[in-house]
């Protein structure tokens, strides 16, 4: 298969219920954010009547290009989860947050969020440059739903967090952009939200401020609040989140373990090589596809439990000039391109002959792993040891170990010693 980094991986699991390890709401944890079948259509601007004159004079029925910014999103987020929202620019992240925040109305589907929401879609939205920092704190906080008494109580804490006490009575128009967002963030996080929706606001501001914001978000997480935040920093998602949602063209293409989602995303964004550097088309033996199933020749499945049997099938395309004995070396690649284990044909190789052939690697009992794994195939001439080609496949299979984090499950005891 030629490399098509942006096409959806050709996985068609026979059982749609295949599930990658993830952190669903802990059993019993109430669902606080729920989106069911949410779609959002933006009507092309020129199609809408934008003046009373047009409205009554011209009945416009031209069908312009409507744009679906969100398609059929189903998500449930339980109390206390920290969820990263990722995807390329224009994939609909901000739109999803706005729909959840109740700022945009979904075209269809339903949304519900319980508890007090703070949405940080833009820091300091609504600040008025002509007013002092103090006045803006009061105004902004009251827009976010705080009463005067609450603001009075929190004012010092807000100012301390923003580190702007010396400028609090200056007009905000004289603030630097960093100071502006600091004050905005300080107000927003003092709203005492149950649910925090954060857009890419952390990208602004200096590093010290970013660290402070992240520390605050981490504190919220540890306090058991529910957080959904957009970021382009995949490392951040891996470090902070229990779960990742990946959007592509308005559709939810992944929902599950951060390490798996970020890997998928890296591939989609093309920052991981999807193919070998060796000219693939010229190779006399080409690995054209890999497939995962329980039994050789069985239906494709992508999700496995430890202890289950896994068959990795490598499909080969051989020309007439292919070597008679072909040696295959298959690596199972984990997150961060770390090889997890390796499988190979017997040293003498296999002799498939010209045409197509399939080599099955059967793993009778999967170890206790957690994560999603990709396949790297090296082909060489078994007689001479000459490398023929290498190919990295995008297809993933998942193993859901019993542990909540970490690649391996390791037995241990915790003991207190005095």
């Amino acid at each position, binding site marked *: 298969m030629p490399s098509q980094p942006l096409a*959806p991986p*050709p*996985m*068609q699991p026979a059982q749609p219920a*295949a*599930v990658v390890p993830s*952190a*669903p709401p802990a059993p019993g944890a109430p669902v606080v954010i729920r989106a*069911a079948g949410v779609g959002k259509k933006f009507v092309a601007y020129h199609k*809408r*009547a*934008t*003046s*009373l*004159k047009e409205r009554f004079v011209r009945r416009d029925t031209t069908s312009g290009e409507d744009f679906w910014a969100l398609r059929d999103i*189903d*998500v*449930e987020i339980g109390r206390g989860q920290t969820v990263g929202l990722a995807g390329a620019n224009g994939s609909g992240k901000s739109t999803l947050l*706005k729909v*959840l*925040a*109740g*700022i*945009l*109305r*979904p075209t269809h*589907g*339903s*949304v*519900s*969020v*319980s*508890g007090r*929401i703070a*949405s940080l*879609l833009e820091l300091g*939205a*609504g600040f*008025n440059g*002509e*007013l002092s920092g103090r*006045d803006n704190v*009061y*105004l902004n906080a*009251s*827009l*976010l*739903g*705080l*009463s*005067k008494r609450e603001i009075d109580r929190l004012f010092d804490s807000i100012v301390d967090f923003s580190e702007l006490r010396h400028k609090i009575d200056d007009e905000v128009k004289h603030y630097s952009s960093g100071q502006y967002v600091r004050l905005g963030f300080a107000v927003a996080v003092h709203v005492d939200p149950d649910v925090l929706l954060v857009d890419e606001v952390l990208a602004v501001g200096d590093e010290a401020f970013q660290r402070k914001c992240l520390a605050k978000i981490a504190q919220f997480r540890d306090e058991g609040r529910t957080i959904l935040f957009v970021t382009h920093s995949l490392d951040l998602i891996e470090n902070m989140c229990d*779960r990742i949602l990946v959007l592509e063209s308005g*559709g*939810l*293409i*992944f*929902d*599950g373990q951060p390490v798996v989602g970020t890997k*998928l995303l890296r591939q989609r964004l093309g920052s991981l090589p999807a193919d070998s550097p060796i000219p693939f088309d010229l190779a006399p033996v080409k690995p054209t596809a890999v497939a995962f199933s329980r039994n050789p020749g069985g239906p494709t499945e*992508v999700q496995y439990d430890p202890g289950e049997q896994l068959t990795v099938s490598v499909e080969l395309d051989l020309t007439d000039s292919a070597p008679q004995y072909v040696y295959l070396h298959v690596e199972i690649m984990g997150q961060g391109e770390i090889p997890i284990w390796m499988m190979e044909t017997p040293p003498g190789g296999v002799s498939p002959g010209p045409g197509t052939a399939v080599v099955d690697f059967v793993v009778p009992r999967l170890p206790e792993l957690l994560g999603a794994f990709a396949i790297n195939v090296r082909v060489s001439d078994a007689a001479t040891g000459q490398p023929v080609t290498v190919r990295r496949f995008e297809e993933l299979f998942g193993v859901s170990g019993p542990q909540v984090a970490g690649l391996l499950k390791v037995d241990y005891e915790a003991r207190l010693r005095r």
Partner: protein
Amino acid sequence: MSRVADLSTLPKPEPTRGAPANRPRGSGARHVDHRSRAQTRVRWELLRNLIRKDLKVKYKGSSLGFAWSLANPLLLLAVYTFVFQVVLKSGIDNFGFYLMSGLLVWNAFSGSVSAACGAVVGNANLVKKVRFPLLVLPLSAVGFSAVHFALQLAVLFVVMLGFGYSLLGPELLLLIPAGAVALLFTVALSVLVSALNVRYRDTQHLLDVALLAWFWINPMVYAFGLIENRLNEWTWVYMLNPMAVVVTTFQRAIYDPPEGNSTGSAPILADLGYRYYLEHLAIAGLISLAVLWLGLRVFRRLQADFAEDL
């Protein structure tokens, strides 16, 4: 479309169409908000803060600007008295006071409807980024004008008393129902146009033209009697305009007509009793309520799409 969402983690939620805690703005115009008293108070505080912000921004660092806006009616008073009494010889006694007694409330009305019209559009960034009760936007424009109006009225009273004008009397109490109806009608129309203007951006232009014309169908620069003489039994149609009722009531409350309430050819005030005004205010109040109902309906219907239309 082949979707990797087949890797989705969660059991498919039953689509819940129950009562979500967080409804998108305006969806279900009818939903009963079980909002606590505290929340209502927070909304009033927000409204107050927005009005205070507008006042602060407008008069920031210029107490002179503030003084000017109060002196403005005095200036008008001087100019109109000169033009109408000296140059045009309108025949209305104390024409300046007659005019001001109706003009101030009209100006407050037209100023606030016009400002409210741009209130949502002018706060586009806020509307697109923060969820808050959007109705406070047109209401704060009304509040801003109301504060001005109250101060200007006070200045007018001081001047009238300074001229030794007989102002204080039981008829002043008419200001209370008249002010209430004026506020109700102003709010109603402000809410309506602020929402319409988001979807139909020429609302503002049409409104400004309409207000210019509307000015003349209130008996402010002419005596009410001129209309009555012309329309005779159709005068009630003229009085369907709530602002005409408000203006005539304000005049009855503030202006002290000359002996016989006449310019010679036409009566100046609509009536010398109180009952006439109270009855007409009641009708104007009902009309205002109808407009308010329409305005809230339109606002609730359209507000869900404000963030998208802006």
